[in-house]
C-alpha cells in the first residue's frame, strides 16, 4: 500500500517536472514576445495617447466610446457614425459563413485526396496551391476575377440560366460574400493539410472492420472519419474563428480601409486599424481590441469546452 502510493507519487512528480520543462522554452519565448505586448495593450486601453506626447489616464472612457458606438449602431445610425457596430455585424456574418464552409470543405478535400487513386498527387497539389500565395496577391487576382465583366460572372452566366452579372466589389449586397469566397478558397486548402495529417492517425483496422460490416464510403466518412478527426476539427475551427474574426488583409485590399460601398466590407480589424492610425486614438483601438478579444475568447472557449477536452 505504502510503496505503491509512493510509486504513483513519484511518477506524478516526474510527469509534472517533465511537462513543465517541455513547455518551458515555448512559454518563456512567448512571455518575452507575447505577453509584454498584451499587457501593454491592456494598459493602453485606459489612456488617451497620440504616440508622441505623454499618456493621459482616462479611466474607462475608451470603453465608453465603444459602447456608445454599439448603442448608436443598434439604433440604426449610418455606418460612418457607428463604425465598430458595422464592423462587428459584418465580421459575425462573415465568420458564420466562412468557418463552417472552410472546415467542411477542408475535410472533404482531405478525404478525397487521401484516397489511393491515380492522379491523387495532382489533386492534392492543386488544392494546396491557393494556400501558397500570399493573401494580398490572392485578393488582387480576385478583384480582377470579380469584376462586372470578369471571369466569375462569365462562368456563373454559363451555369445558371438567366444569371444577371453582379458588380461584386462595388455592391453593398455582395462585397462581403465575395470576400468570404476568396477566404474560403484560400483557407480550405490550407486546413486540408491538417486533416490529411490527422487522417494518418486513424487506425486502418477500424475502416476494415466497418467494411466487413458493409458500411459504404459515405457512411464510413460520417461515422468513422469525422468522429476520429474531432481534435483536429477543434484545431481548424478554433484557428478559423481566430483568423476570421480578426480578418484584415482581404478586406483591406478588396474593400479598402473604409470598407467599400456603404461599409459593406468593413471589419472590426479595419476599425481597430483606423482608430490606431487614422484617427490616432490608440487607447480606443486597444479598448476595441479587448472587445474583440472577449468575443474571440468566448466563442473559442465555448467551442473547446464542448468538443475539445483533453483526453486524460
Amino acid at each position, binding site marked *: 500500500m505504502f510503496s505503491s502510493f509512493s510509486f504513483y507519487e513519484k511518477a506524478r512528480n516526474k510527469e509534472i517536472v517533465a511537462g513543465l520543462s517541455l513547455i518551458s522554452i515555448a512559454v518563456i519565448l512567448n512571455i518575452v514576445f507575447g505577453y509584454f505586448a498584451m499587457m501593454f495593450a491592456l494598459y493602453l486601453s485606459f489612456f488617451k495617447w*497620440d504616440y*508622441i506626447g505623454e499618456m493621459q489616464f482616462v479611466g474607462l472612457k475608451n470603453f465608453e466610446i465603444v459602447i456608445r458606438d454599439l448603442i448608436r449602431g443598434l439604433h440604426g445610425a449610418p455606418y460612418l*457614425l457607428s463604425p465598430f457596430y458595422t464592423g462587428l455585424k459584418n465580421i459575425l456574418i462573415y465568420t458564420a459563413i466562412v468557418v463552417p464552409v472552410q472546415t467542411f470543405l477542408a475535410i472533404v478535400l482531405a478525404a478525397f485526396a487521401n484516397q489511393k487513386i491515380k492522379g491523387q498527387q495532382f489533386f492534392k497539389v492543386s488544392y494546396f496551391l491557393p494556400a501558397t500565395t500570399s493573401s494580398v496577391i490572392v485578393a488582387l487576382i480576385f478583384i480582377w476575377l470579380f469584376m462586372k465583366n470578369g471571369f466569375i460572372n462569365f462562368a456563373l452566366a454559363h451555369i445558371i440560366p438567366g444569371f444577371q452579372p453582379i458588380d461584386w466589389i*462595388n455592391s453593398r449586397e455582395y462585397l462581403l460574400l465575395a470576400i468570404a469566397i476568396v477566404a474560403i478558397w484560400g483557407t480550405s486548402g490550407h486546413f486540408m493539410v491538417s486533416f490529411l495529417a490527422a487522417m494518418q492517425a486513424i487506425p486502418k483496422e477500424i475502416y476494415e472492420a466497418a467494411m466487413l460490416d458493409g458500411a459504404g464510403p459515405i457512411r464510413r466518412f460520417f461515422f468513422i472519419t469525422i468522429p476520429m478527426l474531432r481534435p483536429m476539427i477543434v484545431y481548424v475551427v478554433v484557428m478559423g474563428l481566430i483568423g476570421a474574426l480578426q480578418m484584415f488583409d482581404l478586406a483591406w485590399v478588396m474593400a479598402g*480601409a*473604409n470598407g467599400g*460601398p456603404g461599409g459593406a466590407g468593413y471589419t472590426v480589424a479595419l476599425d481597430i486599424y483606423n482608430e490606431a*492610425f487614422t*484617427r*490616432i486614438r490608440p487607447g480606443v483601438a486597444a479598448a476595441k481590441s479587448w472587445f474583440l478579444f472577449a468575443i474571440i475568447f468566448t466563442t473559442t472557449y465555448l467551442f473547446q469546452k464542448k468538443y475539445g477536452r483533453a483526453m486524460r
Partner: protein
Amino acid sequence: MKKVLVGGLLIFALLFAVVASGCIGGQTQTPTGETKTETQVKTETKVETQVQEKVFIRFAGWSAGETEMKNYERMIKEFEQKNPTIGVKYEVITQMFHENILASFGAGVAPDVFYLDSSWAPIFIDKGALYPISDLADQSFIDKFYPFLLEPFKKNGKLYGLPKDWSMLALFYNKKLFEQAGLTKPPETWEELEEYAKIIADKTGKPGLAIYLGGFNRYVPVAVSNGAPKPWFEKPEDASWFDNPVVKETLAWYINLYKKGKIEREQQGLTPYVVAPGDVGAGWLGDAFGQQQVAMVISGNWMIPFLADQFPDFKYGEDWDIAPVPAGKSGRVTMAYTVILGINAKSEHPQEAWKFVEFLLGPEGQKELVVKAGQTLPSMKGFENDPDMWPQHRKTLSFKYDDMIVFLWGPKSGPLEGKFSDAMAAAMRGEMTIDEAIEVMKQVVQEELSS
C-alpha cells in the same frame, strides 16, 4: 530527462548566441551599435584619432524601387565623404509608412530624419514631434522653395518641414479620341469638361471622363475655383463649410457628373460619358487612361512615369497631352501633393540631421533625386527650364493657376478625406441623396473634431 532539458537549453542558447553575434549567413552589418561606430571611426581616421566622434543618424523613407534606392545611396555616400563625422543609416519601410513612424515614436525609437506626407503633417507638428527647421536653416535657403508648399508646415511663426518634392493635378487627355470626336483643344472650364466628355462618348463610344467614386480632394478645386473658401476643419463648427451655397452647388454638380454621366445614361441605353476606373476594368485613373478606355482624367504628376513605364506605346505628345485643370467662375485652381523631410524633435543630433536634410534638399540633391529621376516635381524654384527635367513635367510646371491648394484639411485630414469620399461615393451611386450626403459629412466633421 535532465539530458533532454540540458539539450534543449543548449540549442536555445546556441540560437541566441548566433543571434547575438549575428555572424552567420553573410548578413551585411549595418551600423546600429555604438561599438561598431567607434571601430569604424578608428580605422577610417587613424591620424586624427578621437578628435571627433562619428555620429550616426537614421533616415527613413518609403521606396520607389531599386533605382531610387541607388540614387539615395549614392547621395548618402557623397554626403558622408563631405562630412566624415556623420554617418547615415538609410531605412526603408515599403508600406504603412506613417503608421510605422508613429509607432516608433510611441516606442521612443523614431528615426532622426523621415519622409512625411502633407496630410499626416499636422498630427506631427501639433504634438511637437518635429524639430523646427526654421531654427536650423538660413532664411535664404528657405526662400528658394515654392512658398505655397511651405504654408501648411508653419505654426506659430516656425517652419517644421521642407518639401522634398511635389506633384500637382493636371488634365490628361487622349489626343486621338479628341480628334475622332472632332475636338481641337482641351476643355477650358468645368462646364466644357462635362460637355466635351459627352461629345466624346457620343462620337467615339468611349467614356469621355473618368473620376473616382468619392475622391473629396479631386472635388476641392471645383469648389474653390468657383469661389468657395478653402476647406479647413479644425473645430466642430467648421462643418459649416458645407453650408456655403457654392459648396452645395459644386458638390451637387460633381456628384451629378457620375449620376447623370453614368447611371442615367446607362438607364437610357447610352454610352456613359463619365465612369469610375472600376467601371472600365481599371484599378485607378492612370490605368483607365493608359488603356485608352477613357479620353480624359484629372490626375497628378505620378501619372507621367507610370504611363512611360507601363504603356510605352502610348506616347506623350502624339497620343496624349497635358492641359491645365479646368477653370471655374472665379479662376483656375489646382491641388498640390507634397512630402516633406522632417527632423525628429527628440533627435540627439539635430544639427547633423539638418546638414543631411540640407544636402538632400539643396540644388544638387534636387537635381539628382527629383529632376533626373522624373517621378515628381522639384520643390525648389529655378528648375523650370532645366534640360534634365522631363518635358511632361516641365509642361505641368508652366501652367498658370490663381491658387494652389496643398492636400490638407486640418488636423484630421486623413480620416476626414476617407469619410467624405465614402459619403460622396454613396451619393454618386444613388444610395443616398446629395443633401443626405452633405448632412453625413457635416456629422463626420463634428464627430471627428469634437473630442
